[in-house]
Every structure is written in structure tokens, then in C-alpha cells.
């Protein structure tokens, strides 16, 4: 293996056997016979779980199929894809939890895997005991944990409860402890699966910050997540998996564009399942976003004319409504708000249903992922509020007609129209 390569995967495949449907007998004799022979059948079925000689195609699935890639030292690579695309299987093989069916992988250096928060924690043991137990399970030595113990406790913010059994912890405390242990894992390669999707918002922000430190330390990181915003924020490079194969491995914005195309069409926004607050006198019933070209994906281009179209439904007698859209980044940091109160429009709602559009003439955010929140007040009282009504992917567009676009991580999220004026001053004249 070349020196600067950290992970090399060659033709990796993994087959799983899925349980076939049992046949139901239709006669009494058949049922009795089935009952008597059931143990034999069961034995065959269980044994087959670990045998693949026959390779019948009916009840096997290829979780991964001939996957090959190389990752250089210090690269941070995101892995995205729908459920069942093979992301977790890939990570499990690299973490040596399960064996590949064919192909091979080479990893240089110590490998740490963070496939779950709080792996191996035992409820009866105290926080202190669990730090050592979980830490060694994740691959640390006692000495390493000794050195980092205070840091871990500090990060989890649990110094008061460190000698309390974990079963008396709140679920938030458990998550904090689990993440704190894992985040202090010191390995050359780190495999991370979906661990940021836990805890309350402020802890999520903190753990994302910690992940940023981790990736800036020059370690190789593979990061599986459904949180596109986190992938965008942490990984310069991303791999898109679909039904066990690599669709694309490239710079993150390119890959996410592909991903959103793949997902966009079959992802109707169902607002009913979202968390919402308010008295419900007026409710948001539909929401979509598109650009002036009529592309109706969940993405817009920087600089595009962007239209947010929505429908409100009235459930009580109300007169005046105020509406606002709030744009936040993945940290929950509020970036800007569009509000009818700002534009000074007083809106009377007379009919049962009201359709509206909010038009942004030149979309002002740099490529990245943002959340749009929705807020409506009926007669000055909050009627409906969705913190995350829509996840919005912003891709590169020509905001400056040919100029370079900023990178969110370095230059900040906003695109502001500006120009430069120079005047040369010559010496002595």
C-alpha cells in the first residue's frame, strides 16, 4: 500500500441472507406434519444464516457489491445514501464487526469505530466505571483513559454525578457521557455512524464542534450521516452509495447535488409528521420551494430568484395574520428572517384557505444546507410554528456572474452584493 493512502478498498462485497416467508399449510394433515417437521425446518433455516454455498438468488441481498475506493491520509469523507444503500454495512466491515463475502480492505494504523453512542455502558455501574469500560471496549488502554479522564468528564459536564450509577442518569446525561467517551478516542482512522443525531440541540452543536476538532487534527475520518448539513460542514469529500454500489465519490457539493436529485423526486413533504407548536387556529398545510426556472427540487442556486409557495388553512375565526420564514444553519443559528411584519403588510384572512408566495429576488446564501422554519401568528398570537419545515440544499449558482463563490466553512454563509473601487497612487506625482 502506498504511503499516503489510509484506506484502500478493493472489490468489497457483502451478501446477507434474508429470511424467506414460511409456507402455510392448508390442510390439517399438512399442519400436523408441518408442526412435527418444524424443528427440522427451523434448523435448516438457522444454519443457512451462515452458509452461502448454494448462492440461491431468491433470499440473498447484496448489501455491498464490488465497492472499490481509496482514501488518503487525513481525508475526511462523508458517506451518504438512502436507508439500505449499504452505508452501515461498509462501516461495519471496516470496523471488523462483520466479514466481507469477497474483496478486501487495507487500513493503515489504529482504527476506532463509533457506530453507536454509549457502546458497552452498563446501567448498574457508575459514570466513572463506565468511562473505563466503554473506553476500553472502544479500543483505548487504561492509561489513555487515565490521561483523558478529566477531559471526558468535563466535556460531558457530569462531574457531580460521576460516581452515580448510570441507570439514575437522564437519557440526555447518558448520551452526553457516551459521546464524551467516544469523542476522546485517539486513533489514526475513525469510523463514525450517525452519532450526531442524539441529544438536545445544544449538545448536538457541541458534539458537532468536537467532531470539527477531530477532523482538523489530521486524522482520517469516514462519516456516515443522514444529516446532510453535518456532512456538508465536516467533510470536503463525500461518497454516495445506492443499492450497495458507489454512485459517486467527489467533492461534497457535487455529490450532495446528485443525492438530492436521487431523493428529491420521491420525497413529498409531509408536514403532518413535523414537530409543531402554537394554538392551531391557522395552520400551514403545504410548502414548496422552487426557482425561476421552475425546478422543483429541494434545492435552489445561490443568486436565483427563489419562490417559497405555501398554503394556510383557517381552523378558527381569526382576522389578521403575520407570517415569517426563518433561515437557520445546521447549528440552529438564525441567519435571517423574511416576515410580513418587516414588509409592513397587514394580511386579513377571510376565506378558509390562503395561498401565498414569498419571493427572494436573489437568493443570498452560499452553497450549503439550511433549515427553513415557519411561523404564523393569528391576531398577534402564535398559531403555528415549525422550527424545521423544510431542509434546503443550496447549490452553486452564478450570484456574481462568473466570480468565485465563497466556501461557507471559511467565508461565512452570506452573499452580499458589493463592488470594489481602486485608485492607483503614483509616488512623487
Amino acid at each position, binding site marked *: 500500500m502506498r504511503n499516503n493512502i489510509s484506506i484502500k478498498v478493493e472489490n468489497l462485497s457483502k451478501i446477507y441472507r434474508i429470511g424467506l416467508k414460511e409456507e402455510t399449510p392448508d390442510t390439517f394433515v399438512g399442519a400436523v406434519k408441518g408442526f412435527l417437521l418444524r424443528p427440522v425446518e427451523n434448523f435448516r433455516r438457522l444454519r443457512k444464516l451462515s452458509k452461502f454455498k448454494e448462492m440461491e438468488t431468491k433470499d440473498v441481498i447484496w448489501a455491498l457489491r464490488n465497492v472499490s475506493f481509496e482514501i488518503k491520509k487525513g481525508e475526511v469523507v462523508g458517506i451518504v445514501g438512502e436507508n439500505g444503500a449499504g452505508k452501515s454495512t461498509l462501516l*461495519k466491515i471496516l470496523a471488523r464487526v462483520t*466479514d466481507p463475502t469477497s474483496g478486501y480492505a487495507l487500513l493503515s494504523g489504529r482504527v476506532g469505530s463509533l457506530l453507536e453512542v454509549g457502546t*458497552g455502558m452498563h446501567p*448498574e455501574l457508575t459514570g466513572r*466505571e463506565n468511562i473505563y469500560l466503554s473506553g*476500553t471496549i472502544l479500543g483505548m488502554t487504561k492509561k489513555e483513559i487515565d490521561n483523558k479522564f478529566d477531559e471526558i468528564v468535563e466535556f460531558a459536564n457530569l462531574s457531580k454525578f460521576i460516581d452515580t450509577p448510570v441507570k439514575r442518569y437522564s437519557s440526555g446525561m447518558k448520551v452526553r457521557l457516551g459521546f464524551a467517551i467516544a469523542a476522546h478516542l485517539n486513533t489514526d482512522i475513525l469510523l463514525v455512524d450517525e452519532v450526531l443525531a442524539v441529544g438536545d440541540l445544544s449538545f448536538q452543536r457541541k458534539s458537532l464542534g468536537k467532531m470539527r476538532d477531530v477532523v482538523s487534527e489530521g486524522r482520517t475520518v469516514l462519516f456516515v450521516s443522514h444529516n446532510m448539513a453535518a456532512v456538508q460542514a465536516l467533510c470536503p469529500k463525500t461518497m454516495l452509495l445506492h443499492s450497495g454500489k458507489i454512485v459517486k465519490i467527489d467533492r461534497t457539493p457535487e455529490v450532495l447535488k446528485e443525492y438530492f436529485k436521487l431523493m428529491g423526486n420521491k420525497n413529498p413533504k409531509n408536514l403532518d409528521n413535523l414537530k409543531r407548536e402554537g394554538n392551531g387556529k391557522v395552520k400551514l398545510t403545504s410548502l414548496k420551494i422552487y426557482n425561476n426556472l421552475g425546478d422543483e427540487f429541494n434545492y435552489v442556486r445561490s443568486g436565483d430568484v427563489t419562490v417559497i409557495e405555501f398554503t394556510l388553512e383557517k381552523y378558527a375565526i381569526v382576522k389578521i395574520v403575520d407570517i415569517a420564514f426563518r433561515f437557520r444553519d445546521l447549528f440552529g443559528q438564525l441567519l435571517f428572517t423574511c416576515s410580513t411584519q418587516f414588509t409592513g403588510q397587514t394580511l386579513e384572512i377571510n376565506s378558509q384557505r390562503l395561498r401565498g408566495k414569498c419571493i427572494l429576488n436573489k437568493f443570498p446564501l452560499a452553497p450549503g444546507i439550511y433549515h427553513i422554519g415557519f411561523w404564523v401568528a393569528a391576531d398577534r398570537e402564535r398559531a403555528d410554528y415549525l422550527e424545521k419545515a423544510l431542509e434546503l440544499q443550496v447549490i452553486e449558482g452564478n450570484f456574481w456572474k462568473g466570480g468565485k463563490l465563497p466556501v461557507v466553512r471559511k467565508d461565512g454563509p452570506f452573499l452580499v452584493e458589493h463592488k470594489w473601487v481602486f485608485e492607483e497612487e503614483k509616488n512623487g506625482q
Partner: protein
Amino acid sequence: MQDKVNIVVIKPRGKKWWSIEWREIWRYKDLLYFLVMRDIKILYKQTVLGFTWAIIRPLLSMFVFTLIFGKLAKLTSDGVPYAIFNYTALVPWTYFSSSLTTSTQSLIMNVRIFTKVYFPRLFIPLTPILAKLVDFFIAFIILIIMMAWYHIYPTVKILIIPYLVFLMILFSSGVSMWLSALAIQYRDVKYGVQFLAQFLMYAAPVVWSISLIPQKYRLLYGLYPMAGVIEGFRCSLLNTKPIPWDLIISGTISALIIFITGFLYFRWKERIFADVA
């Protein structure tokens, strides 16, 4: 040196699948320690009596057995009081049966750990084997106290005890590797092991004396390693008979076979544990 980084190779099982990477075991030694400590610490958590249970459990068994088999059935006890005759057997027996039932379940109990992280899988069934030694030593100390109570003093024959303990651990580990690897794929084993433990107890000379076995079957019977361990404990501690070398030797042979086959079976199956669990 930069070039000397450890390269991890992941591929389907190769030819030397059974071989153990000792360097790796050494690197994970702290984990084994904390796993064992976990098992010891949680065993009697939230009990009033705590470690007293390690004393009470074999003693209670002894009272029941002494009442039924000693007083009612009047089984022979090789010339020593039935209570201590029985308790001497219960000390290694309780270790064997409790480590057996615990490690059979061990993989099932630890599914959430080993489907998420890699570490030497053998640690899982071996953890109870080591953790139960604590109970064993507590029970052993009680045995010494009882011997003093009955004025039974050991002879030089007690030098065989460390070997008998080794044989006991060897056999227990072998059986544990077999049963834990079977139980993760066939959960029947989990239920069957309760009966197996009961059956094995009556098959071992726990409540009865080895003198009931006809001489010509003695060597064959010795293939059950617990026979040699229990009879060895009695002969050396209670000074009932000379050391039963025949039983110990044939027990060692079969324990070795079970240990090696159990090890191979476990190693053969361990790569698919995460898939069948």
C-alpha cells in the same frame, strides 16, 4: 518509524483462521480486566446481602443435599460427615455450573457490544470464566473453615489442588466456547443449558460417592473431567483416599479435546456472529 504503521487487513477468512494474534490480545488486556470487573461488580448489585450470596448459595445447596441424600437416602460419604463430603464437591461444582450457564448466555447478552465494535471475541465467553473465580475462592475459604470445624487436616496431597483448579477452568472454558457459539445461532441452547447443568450435576459425584462406580468403568467415567476434579478435591482435602490419578488423567485428555474443539468451533463461527445474532 513512519513506515512501520500497523496495517489492518480485512478480507474473507483465510487459511490460518484459527491462529490468534497474541499482540492484539495483549493490546486489549485492559478490556478483559474491565469486562471481568464489570461482571464481578454487577453480580450482587442492589442486593442486601451482597457477596454473602457467594457463601449462602453453596451452603444452602449443602443443607438440602445433606438432608435428602445424607439423612434420608443415607448415601455413603467415604467415612467423613456427609455435609463436608458434599460441600467439598459443591465448591468446584458451583463454579462449573454457574460459569457454564453464564457464558452460554454471554454472547446473547453482549450482542449490542460486539455488533458495534471489534475486539477479540473470545473475551466474551471467557469473562464469566474469570469472574466466577471470585465466588469460587470465597466458597473455598468457607470450605477451609468447615474443615477446621470438623477437625479435618489436609496432608501434602493438597499440592494437587492448583492442578485441579486448572483442569476445572480448562473444562469450563472449553464447554463455554462450544455453548456460547452455539447459543448465538440456535437459541434453543439457551433453554437447554439449564437442564444440561442439572443433568451434569447428577452425572458428577456431587451428592454420591465415586465408590459407587464399578472399577471397570472407572477410566471411562473419568472422561467426564468434573469426576476427576471433584474426587481429587475430596481425596486431597478430606484425605479420604489416595489421589485418583486415573480419573485426573483421563479427565485432562477429554478436557483438552473439548477445549481445543471448542476453541476451533468458536473461532470458526465468530466471524458470522454479528450476522446471525
